[in-house]
């Protein structure tokens, strides 16, 4: 295969996110180790590709950045390598073990957490009707009366179904139980029906920012880092509505089946890139929070804009008043089923 001794392929999401990784991890690592890094931006198809690579017995990737749900899936299927966190990752500067430092972020044996991010809402500040409070969160998306205009939502059931139930009055604890039932699903779809013809459904994270910038929509969901860059870096008249942000984790997985030297190289990189300082550094480029508790205090100012990053993090208490935690395991079971129903509903 095309792997040279000094080359690593790291798969990530592209755009500003990859750029932040490049600045915080890749460049310092390259400078230190002399290894060159190829960026692959196929993280959205990581599971499919890893499966095919596994079938073929030819793993061309060295490290993959995936969402927690995918990490669980990959781990279950044996496509990602189980790692002993304390052995592989650095301890916190104060000596706290990696396991304790990452804490609840370690959702799978294969998952090396990196950031917390959330799917939340941005809105055009200049399109807020006069005399009305700007929207504050997910439920405002269903309020066409107060906030007329087009919306943008992700073209799959995840998050949308939960928000629909939640904003239809279902208690936070009951959302997944309800969604298991036909009635719960019907209720969610009914709620979504109310805004269906006002909604543009996106498939890529970049779409909502573009739509907001064009003034095509009034509000739309997307990853909070994207909104940050739209507001802070591009200076667009856009505000954020944090309530019921859908909380999620993102991190590394190592594909199974790497040769020994490649594995050693990958582990070396991972050790470097997930220490307390690096994780904090990443937050200087994008508004995603570090998953180590020990990194939180180190989060500083934006690397070029010089603004404080902490208030833009999903974990900032004022943003996290109401946070929705995605139930990955539940989705693993119900995804196919709800997906079919969701797509059928969309096509109606």
């Amino acid at each position: 295969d095309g792997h040279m001794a000094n080359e690593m392929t790291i798969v990530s999401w592209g755009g500003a996110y990859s750029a932040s990784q490049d600045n915080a991890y890749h460049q310092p690592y390259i400078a230190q180790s002399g290894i060159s890094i190829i960026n692959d931006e196929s993280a959205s198809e990581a599971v499919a590709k890893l499966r095919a690579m596994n079938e073929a017995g030819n793993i061309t990737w060295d490290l993959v950045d995936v969402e927690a749900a995918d990490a669980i899936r990959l781990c279950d299927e044996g496509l990602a390598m189980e790692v002993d966190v304390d052995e592989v990752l650095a301890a916190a500067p104060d000596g706290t073990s990696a396991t304790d430092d990452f804490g609840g972020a370690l959702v799978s044996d294969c998952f090396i957490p990196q950031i917390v991010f959330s799917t939340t809402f941005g809105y055009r500040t200049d399109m807020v009707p006069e005399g009305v409070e700007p929207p504050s969160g997910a439920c405002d998306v269903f309020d066409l009366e107060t906030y007329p205009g087009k919306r943008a939502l992700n073209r799959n059931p995840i998050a949308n179904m939960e928000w629909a139930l939640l904003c239809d009055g279902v208690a936070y604890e009951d959302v997944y139980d309800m969604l298991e039932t036909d009635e719960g699903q019907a209720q969610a779809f009914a709620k979504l029906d109310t805004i269906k013809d006002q909604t543009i459904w996106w498939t890529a994270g970049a779409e909502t920012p573009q739509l907001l910038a064009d003034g095509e929509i009034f509000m739309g969901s997307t990853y909070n880092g994207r909104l940050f860059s739209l507001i802070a870096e591009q200076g667009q008249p856009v505000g954020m509505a944090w309530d019921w942000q859908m909380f999620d984790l993102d991190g590394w997985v190592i594909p199974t089946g790497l040769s020994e030297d490649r594995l050693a190289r990958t582990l070396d990189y991972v050790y470097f890139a997930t220490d307390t300082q690096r994780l904090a550094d990443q937050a200087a480029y994008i508004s995603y929070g570090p998953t180590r508790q020990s990194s939180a205090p180190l989060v500083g100012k934006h690397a070029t804009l010089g603004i404080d990053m902490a208030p833009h993090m999903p974990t900032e208490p004022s943003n996290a008043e109401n946070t929705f935690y995605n139930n990955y395991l539940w989705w693993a079971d119900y995804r196919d089923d709800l997906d079919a129903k969701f797509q059928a509903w969309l096509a109606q």
Partner: protein
Amino acid sequence: MLAADGRPLKASLNRALRRQKIRALFLIAPLLIFILVSFVMPIFDMLLRSVENQIVGNTLPRTVVALQDWDENADTAPDEVVFAALYTDIALAAEYKTHTRLGSRLNYEMTGISSLFRKTGRAVGRFETDVYTEAFQAADPAYADPAQWAGWMQDDNIRAALPQTTNTYDAWAQMIVEEENDIPAEEEPWDFVYTALYADAAGGAALPISVDLSAIEPVSLQASFAEIDEDWIDPDVWQTIKAFSPSYTDGYFLNAVDLLRGADGVEQRPENERLYIGQFINTFVMSLSIMGMCVLLGYPIAWLLANLPARSANLLMILVLLPFWTSLLVRTSAWKVLLQQQGVINDLLVWMRIIADDGRLTMINNQTGTIIAMTHILLPFMILPLYSVMKTIPPSYLRAAKSLGATDWTAFWRVYFPQSVPGIGAGCILVFILSIGYYITPELVGGTKGVFISNRIAFHISSSLNWGLAAALGTILLTVVMVLYWMYDKIVGIDNVKLGG
């Protein structure tokens, strides 16, 4: 008919032509082989996935065999034998980590199986079958000696006497080598091997070293599984496993046409899950509209090009080919810029006061968007064949019609148009074939209504990972395309496809 030397004329002819034929084939062969290998085989390979279902048989080989005796119409779960087989299978699969993949596969057929398998994989190591292990090892230390085990398992007499043990041990040994990179002769067999040994012994087989089994309290595997999840004694789960245990399945195809294999045979899916027939119809209707648009826009252009002097025609042809050669992605993005509500066209219309600012037209993220963008992309495929047909219609026909007293319009409609119909046919089929399989453009401008079946295929390939369903949808799509292709070949002839000039 015979030749002069009495041999059949055909035979003499073939002999005479052999060299020419070989020469021609010799020239074609490299490409043919290349295409067969690099293109045709991959497609067949993919289509096979639409019926392939070895995963169940490969992951649960013993269970599948044991299930043959179970009556799927009975309202009870299978008996202990099946669960014993399942125990071994899942224990092994959990090591290979294939049980979750099987779970995902069966989850397509029945929601919830995925987590059932995942849970079971985690719990299967904690069954209380270690009582057997301990009993055997206590009875004779030889039973705890890996080397002794390995020795027994090379003795044909013992192998014959202990069929279940042999089968289980072999599978275990293979797993130890492949997954753990250890040597079986140095590893103590796992609980499920002892469980099989117990089952053999309980069945009356002679053990290598006899052991008194009466003291062992048998463990109910059925109960153990039920303890992990009640679903294991739900006959529906077992029906699903049994129904999808053959190596080949029609399940994906049924799904692809909104059917499913229910309790009493094939039935329609519930209304809120019916998707694909609608998508196929949508794909068809939109392709037809695109085709229609292409004819409407392509005909005048082709006519103009065919009737202008060659020099100007060739220059104008560049206007046709330029978009053809501009990145599809870029063109599609440009249509976004043009068509969206705050886009160029709406802005212009508002500026010209044709529409009001709050009455902006929705031309994108719906079928209109797809049709406009795809018409633009496929228009050259209509213009080129039309043009090449029209080039062959001599102007003297129109002149003849006029000399016979026909007005311009009659001459066109009665004489020119009918002769250009083959070009329309060629262009239509080409455009239709190409549009029916489109993927990128609808993905970017189609919204939810303006997408094609190809988008579903891509979705199942890269997102939902239901490759079998993707293959089934692909097979159906490919069949439609092939039928059209065949028609095209019949009507126009493949050699008559022309690109330009």
